[in-house]
């Protein structure tokens, strides 16, 4: 069975990145969800972000 059909048989558990209202909407419906306190990598400095990603 592919993973999409597997998902159809599981409880949805969401990671939300970005608009917090999408997360609060899920919480209101008692859907399992976690909101990431996301920030632009390296303070939005693209060059620094690309250097950092190479460290991982």
């Amino acid at each position, binding site marked *: *069975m*592919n*993973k*999409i*059909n597997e*998902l*159809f048989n*599981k*409880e*949805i*558990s*969401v*990671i*939300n*990145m*970005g*608009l*917090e*209202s*999408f*997360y*609060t*909407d*899920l*919480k*209101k*419906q008692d*859907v*399992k969800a*976690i*909101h*990431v*306190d*996301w*920030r*632009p*990598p390296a*303070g*939005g*400095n693209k060059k620094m972000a690309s250097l950092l*990603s190479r460290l991982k």
Partner: protein
Amino acid sequence: MKVNYEIRKNTYYDSVTLMLISKEIKKMEGIKEALVGMGTDLNKELATMLNITTDEINDLGANDFFISVLSEEDLNMKEISIKVDELLTKKKNDSPSDYNPPTLDSALKYQADSNVVVISLPGKYAADEVRKSLKSGLHVMLFSDNVSMKEEKELKTLAREKGLLMMGPDCGTAIINNVPLAFANVIKKGKIGIVGASGTGTQEVTVIIDKLGEGVSQVIGTGGRDLKSEIGGIMMLQGIEALLKDPNTEVIVLISKPPADEVAKKVLKAIENSPKPVVVDFIGGDKELIEQYGAYSCATLEDAAYKAVALVKGEEVEDFNGFTLRDDEIDKIVEKEVSKFHSKQKYVRGLYTGGTLADEAMKLLNKDLGELYSNTPLSPKYKLSDINKSIKNTCIDLGDDDFTVGKPHPMIDPTTRVERIIKEAEDDEVALILMDFVLGYGSHEDPVGEMIPSIKKSQKIMMDKGNYLSVVCSICGTDKDPQSLEESQRRLEEIGAIVMPSNAQAVRLASKILKELKGNC
């Protein structure tokens, strides 16, 4: 005029929260213009446009926060700063005070059974997070736009290799296991599975399915570009395969604006020998081609819902091209509206928050009224040279990029439409306003309530000049949505608006009124 500002380094808030706070600050006494935002290039450009920038603001990075206001007199910046904090705290308190990890990896450690990532970050950061999610074996719904076609192709190819969903970019709606994600209505659980490449189009179909007493098994969004040649329908094909295998799906519905020809054929080939009936709405696309592959073609989104429900119930499949009300009831409404206009009044102005609904309206009106002017016209000849000024028959998609630079989508913040309807009412040749109201999760908490004062004001502007403004609308919502469908409809009808059961019916009624009006001239 004086510019006052405050800067907070390394303080991050999401863009929609800040845009809504900017709106509140602008309402404060003595303030002409306000921008509360992160120091992104877009916000810095916006501050320059609004004449509220400074050298310090121009030096900020995307992780720095600023408040800048324009006022006639000196004002106490501290007061504004306190108000912003109050609003930020209020927003924070509205949300549950759970642990918010800083990265995807840490979120995954904290919530190990996570299986779907919903991403609505600024476009330029989104692709990296999608890639990480897919590599971690997680399904993705990507709401963000401004993701390149090349990245979309790469990410969808990766998703296909891993057997995962990659819904988007620019995917507004999905319902997985009965859970509405992003912009979606609360729909009964049922046997109809949908793969949709257009957000509000998909919402409209699901809402009508629900009104007809059926429900959905899964609603998979693909993002609007999935059926373009460059992407080749990767996610729609994945979605079809999953729904064909899904024992809870008995009927499949595919929704998209007209696809590239070779992609349409590829998609239809995938359902050619389907043991489950398939209904296809390539909004205004090639119907014969659809039927050649053994699928049911549709005239409207509403027609798609009617056909899918008939198939589930084992009833005969018929075209639905008319009205829910009886013909004589419709004629009565038309007659009553037409009797109130001044002889100069003759044009329709469609003010839409849903892009696909605007598109459907133009395609239906085109048959009776000829081509309409728009910011997103059916043919380039009818593109408005100034999107803020309607010409003759005009239909506007207020959710298009033209109107949303630095502002939330009108389904979240209806301000652009609140202002636009007044402008339309000042034009003596306007007879009718056509509108959509989209309820459900993601949307504004009361889209109807936000519009009512300005609809009333528009009606009065018209009345004071001896004219009459006809308001015809539809509500894309169910009785289970967080906003009350019943109350929304009641309040619109109370001020004389005509609320039709679907966008297609609202457009058909508008068309009948205008044709009758033309006949009388």
